């Protein structure tokens, strides 16, 4: 937005503005804007009481609650462990560091359904970890805890990859100064390093949370999909579609879309705040 001059005056010697911009807008409208507007047009066919009744149905409210709480818990866990992982990767040296660093992107590259069946196999009552926890009375698969674990897997790269570059670029000088002034290591961390890390941590949190709200493939296997208990909002949309209840599905989707817009706005504001707009990609 730096060029707040009218378009015509912002002349460039470079060619191709018309064609590249034209194609960009055309393709964006064709694939994203027009299809998305279908959700708004479809819901406008409902009366307000109808819409309200659909989205405040106990089963729908329960699915929002499950999606929200598990995505929030998973994003929080990822902030703590994501920071630790980023810290260890940037600051310490240990064998296999490069390999560990590449592994961080696995959840991003692995198809979600594959992650879903693998996590279910591990945490089901007869699975590797599930069978260890079974005697202790802890159930993971087919409970909100299982959904949270799937979302921790999905969200991890978002936090690590937003914190890592900031941690990398931190100046040593301020830390040096803190030490000279007599601060202990922990105090240096909380007073000097952490404040700089708060914007990327919040951005990572928001990204992991937004992704967790909409996540489907990795959750649907491990959640057990019990209405009111472990049914997530995206699954409820799917169920309504299978019952040909397009209105109901669209109403639930509209609420999630509005939340997604708000999350995207927050993420962009956070990135602008931390001065890393567009770089965190």
């Amino acid at each position, binding site marked *: 937005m730096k060029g707040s001059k009218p378009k015509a005056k912002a002349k460039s010697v470079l060619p191709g503005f018309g064609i590249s911009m034209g194609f*960009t807008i055309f393709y964006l409208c064709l694939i994203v804007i027009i299809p998305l507007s279908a959700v708004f047009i*479809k819901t406008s066919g409902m009366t307000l009481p109808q819409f309200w009744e659909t989205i405040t149905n106990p089963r729908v409210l329960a699915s929002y609650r499950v999606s929200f709480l598990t995505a929030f818990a998973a994003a929080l866990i990822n902030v703590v462990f994501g920071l630790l992982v980023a810290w260890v990767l940037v600051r310490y040296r240990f064998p296999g560091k490069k390999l560990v660093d590449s592994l961080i992107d696995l959840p991003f590259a692995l198809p*979600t*359904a*594959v992650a879903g069946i693998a996590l279910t196999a591990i945490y089901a009552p007869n699975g590797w970890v599930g069978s260890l926890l079974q005697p202790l009375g802890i159930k993971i698969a087919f409970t909100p805890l299982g959904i949270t674990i799937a979302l921790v*897997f999905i969200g991890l790269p978002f936090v690590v990859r937003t914190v890592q570059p900031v*941690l990398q670029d931190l100046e*040593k000088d301020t830390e040096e100064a803190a030490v000279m002034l007599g601060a202990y290591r922990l105090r240096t961390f909380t007073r000097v390093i952490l404040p700089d890390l708060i914007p990327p941590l919040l951005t990572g949190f928001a990204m992991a949370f937004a992704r967790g709200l909409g996540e489907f493939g990795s959750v649907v296997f491990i959640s057990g999909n019990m209405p009111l208990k472990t049914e997530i909002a995206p699954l409820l949309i*799917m169920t309504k579609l299978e019952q040909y209840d397009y209105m109901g599905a669209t109403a639930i989707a509209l609420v999630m879309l509005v939340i997604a817009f708000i999350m995207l706005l927050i993420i962009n504001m956070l990135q602008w705040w931390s001065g890393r707009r567009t770089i965190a990609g």
Partner: protein
Amino acid sequence: MAGAVTAHLDHTAAQRPQHINESGLVRIILITIALLFLALVVVLPLVTIFMEAFKKGVDVYVASVTEPYALSALKLTLLTAVIAVPLNTLFGVAAAWAITKFRFRGKNILITLIDLPFAISPVIAGLIFVLLFGAQGFFGPWLDERGIQIIFALPGIVLATIFVTFPFVAREIIPLMQAQGTQEEEAAASLGARGWQIFWRVTLPNIKWGLLYGIILCNARAMGEFGAVSVVSGHIRGQTNTLPLHVEILYNEYQFSASFAVASLLLLLAVLTLVAKSIIEWKAEKIKS
């Protein structure tokens, strides 16, 4: 959103003077906790897929990945990616050119709109195309009269895949091209180079590694998409079943070994993507230094 950050592990950051570093014991404890966490969250699922895939032996594995339904799913997955990835690449390059080489109003809004598919649930990505082209959709009756099927057919699967992987290439190269500025292109233009010449000779060599990673990531996501494709595919075996959907069907039929065998193919794709990323980062690093 993530994955786009090419984090170059800087070795100088790991070499810190003693007084601004943690004590040896603290370091070891922190490294151990981090590695245990990663082992539990990332490595364990990875190992599980291979263990489960080969649980009933190599014969069952080979049979599972070479049966006709698996092969037709593989074919459909490849076909979808072959259509979706080039289109999104073309879009990514065009969008990056317009956004980074020119000034115009509403640039931030445009970037946000490009990001939009990232923030939207894949299930909603599928739903919107059902609302448009499904039997009860806005264009449903019109398409029906002409005998064109989009939902529960290849076009729907391709559309949903394009939507979900829409921002990947653009998001990968926009920061790169932004950082490089416009001087080199302007110099080429003032020397009389034409549009395509500037792009092929000046811009492309500068962004090729980032572009390549964007394409590879876009491809991995296109081949692995589950939620959006699941809504529009109709799950007809041998016809509209992609590899991830085939994994789901086998799993729900309790054919766990077969399901994990097919899943291991997709895991291989993910691992290859990560290897490619490492090579690309290494190449990009070498050029810089």
